[in-house]
């Protein structure tokens, strides 16, 4: 089992939350806008504290309200690709990619990662000079190179044209099939859910 999530959080008038367990592979969190998909990712990442519930990944508890466990964000070893790339504007692409890199364990090889993402020619560029698709791929590379235990993708294909979407989809398939990293991906597009998801969770 990869993800075992059961969280609720009150935000203003609304009660947000999700409860699901998943197997290996890529799990799509599918639902309309405003269903609380991003909030759920933030709660799994530790950026938003759930009022109640638990988050377990591969048997390890990251959050458990009853047991008072709340692992700090920086020690959860997540690879989070946000809806916006969130690249550090004062660092070049190379420094962005290496920001989360630790020499511990079986970290992905740098060359291999920039190779399958096709971002080798961008290393000396500043983030502001990248196109939307390029920035998205650099953000995915940065998350992967931090040697995460699992990957959170928040609408990784939104606001990209058809060609760019295809590139990113291939990269995600590579992560799912070759790197075999557990992935939780948020989308509201049925086509993406169908093509990429090993399983689909509806919110």
């Amino acid at each position: 089992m990869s993800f075992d999530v059961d969280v609720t959080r009150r935000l203003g008038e609304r009660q947000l939350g999700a409860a699901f367990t998943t197997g290996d592979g890529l799990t799509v969190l599918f639902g309309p806008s405003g269903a609380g998909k991003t909030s759920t990712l933030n709660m799994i990442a530790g950026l938003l504290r759930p009022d109640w519930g638990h988050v377990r990944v591969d048997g390890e508890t990251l959050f458990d309200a009853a047991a008072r466990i709340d692992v700090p964000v920086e020690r959860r070893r997540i690879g989070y690709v946000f809806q916006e790339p969130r690249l550090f504007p004062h660092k070049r692409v190379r420094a962005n990619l290496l920001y989360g890199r630790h020499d511990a364990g079986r970290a992905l090889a740098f060359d291999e990662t920039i190779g399958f993402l096709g971002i080798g020619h961008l290393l000396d560029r500043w983030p502001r000079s990248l196109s939307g698709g390029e920035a998205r791929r650099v953000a995915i590379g940065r998350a992967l190179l931090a040697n995460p235990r699992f990957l959170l993708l928040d609408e990784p294909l939104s606001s990209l044209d058809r060609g760019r979407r295809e590139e990113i989809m291939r990269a995600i398939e590579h992560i799912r099939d070759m790197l075999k990293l557990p992935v939780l991906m948020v989308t509201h597009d049925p086509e993406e859910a169908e093509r990429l998801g090993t399983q689909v969770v509806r919110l």
Partner: protein
Amino acid sequence: MELSLILTPTEWEIVALSLKVAATAMVVTLPIGFGFAWVLARGQFPGKVLLDGLVHLPLVLPPVVTGWVLLLAFGPHGPIGGWLQGWFGVTVLFRWTGAAIAAGVMALPLMVRAIRLSIEAVDRRLESAARTLGAGPWRTFWSVTLPLSMPGVLAGAVLGFARSIGEFGATITFVSNVPGETRTLPLAIYSALQLPNGDAEVLRLALVSVALAFGALIASELLARRSGRGMHVL
């Protein structure tokens, strides 16, 4: 009347003293100002409005009043002055260190404003991105928040430096007008104005003041502009 634009040795000493006072004031006030700016930008606590007002008080208070308050605090029987005297046997009264304190206090509001704005302008989503990449709060601060707010910090420092160079009212009230010790540029100009033949000195020192202040303003403006250039791309 013969008008020379060449500074006399005494006037050079006045300029050097002013730079020393202003530079010391900046070095000491910058971390304090950053601390205040940080708390005001990020903190949420009761009494925040009060702290905000207190920090900005020197900006709106008559400088003479600020100088008088400093005199009370740092005087031999004041809470800070008594402590300095008792533990270290030092006083800042009539000393250039006192002039630096007055300059620092007067510059603080300007610095805090500039730094606070730049901290508030930092995209906090970048900080959460850093956290997910394994950076703890300190590394996030040093590698993301501080570099991104640096242009504002530098602009605030330059602006505060210029303000310190021009400090008059609080200084003369607090540490008087002692030649070679607390007689900075504005105080020297004021003194020269009292002399029958002081016109040439006034002109020379005034020109130096204009040059220093103008240079600082330009530098501050350039730094502030840099902060707006390509730094907010997401």
